[in-house]
């Protein structure tokens, strides 16, 4: 009985992680788009983005730890930390490890943002667009519940939310109110010849 509790926990925590991670990605995109309204200031988007990200890590830790200590799959810590080293569902589990490690890099650099500077932080933060889809594929590939109706609905909702937000971001130009004067200025500077 206690064994199956671990197994149910890892499945449940995986699903919760997917929902939270998708919410974090959507909040991140909304903050880049400078979405705001009278009831929704910009610092709320950023605050939710950061705090939900930390909460995601908690459920992800639960997902990973319960999967490792569950005696049924007998994974071992190596399989949880080294991609594609698992004897159990090597590819699908490996994708989960890759998504987790990318996410870890994103979170650690965010916590150290003051040390590494904005540009390095931002470059690493783009890895989100690798980590999130890999996590979704991992869920579909290895998820014991992947083809149950409720998880298909949840996953589809996550894909729809992140997809809509990402598409909207791609189609929206710069949100900098001085974007066009900046571009003009830079073009003017580059045209000048050295004496």
């Amino acid at each position, binding site marked *: 009985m206690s064994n199956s509790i671990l197994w149910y926990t890892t499945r449940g925590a995986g699903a919760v992680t997917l929902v939270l991670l998708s919410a974090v990605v959507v909040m991140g995109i909304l903050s880049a788009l*400078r979405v705001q309204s009278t009831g929704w200031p910009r*610092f709320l988007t*950023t605050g939710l983005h950061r705090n939900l990200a930390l909460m995601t890590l908690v459920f992800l830790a639960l997902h990973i730890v319960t999967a490792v200590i569950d005696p049924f799959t007998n994974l071992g810590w190596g399989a949880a930390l080294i991609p594609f080293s698992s004897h159990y569902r090597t590819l699908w589990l490996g994708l989960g490890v890759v998504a987790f490690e990318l996410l870890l890099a994103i979170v650690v650099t965010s916590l150290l943002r*003051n040390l590494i500077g*904005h540009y390095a932080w931002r470059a690493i933060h783009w890895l989100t667009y690798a980590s999130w889809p890999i996590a979704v594929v991992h869920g579909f590939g290895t998820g014991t519940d992947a083809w149950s109706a409720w998880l298909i609905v949840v996953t589809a909702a996550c894909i729809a939310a992140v997809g809509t937000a990402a598409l909207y971001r791609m189609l929206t130009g710069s949100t*900098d109110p001085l974007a066009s004067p900046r571009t003009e200025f830079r073009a003017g500077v580059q045209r000048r010849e050295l004496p």
Partner: protein
Amino acid sequence: MTKEFALTVDRIKCDGRGLCAELLPEMIRLDEWGYPIIAAGPIPQHLIPLAQRAVEDCPVLALAFRRTERSKGG
């Protein structure tokens, strides 16, 4: 000598997200393009926690504390 802190904005990094003015309207207002105008002088003691939050929440790390030292009564 007492240590005091003022707010300073890096005009190159700032791209007018406006979170700072939401979090610290007592000291920061936005110009017509959405870029911050910061009240001169040291941050009043009771506003330091809010100022800290504004600095931490700047999405482009453009807002910072600057330490200023001044002699008492000076």
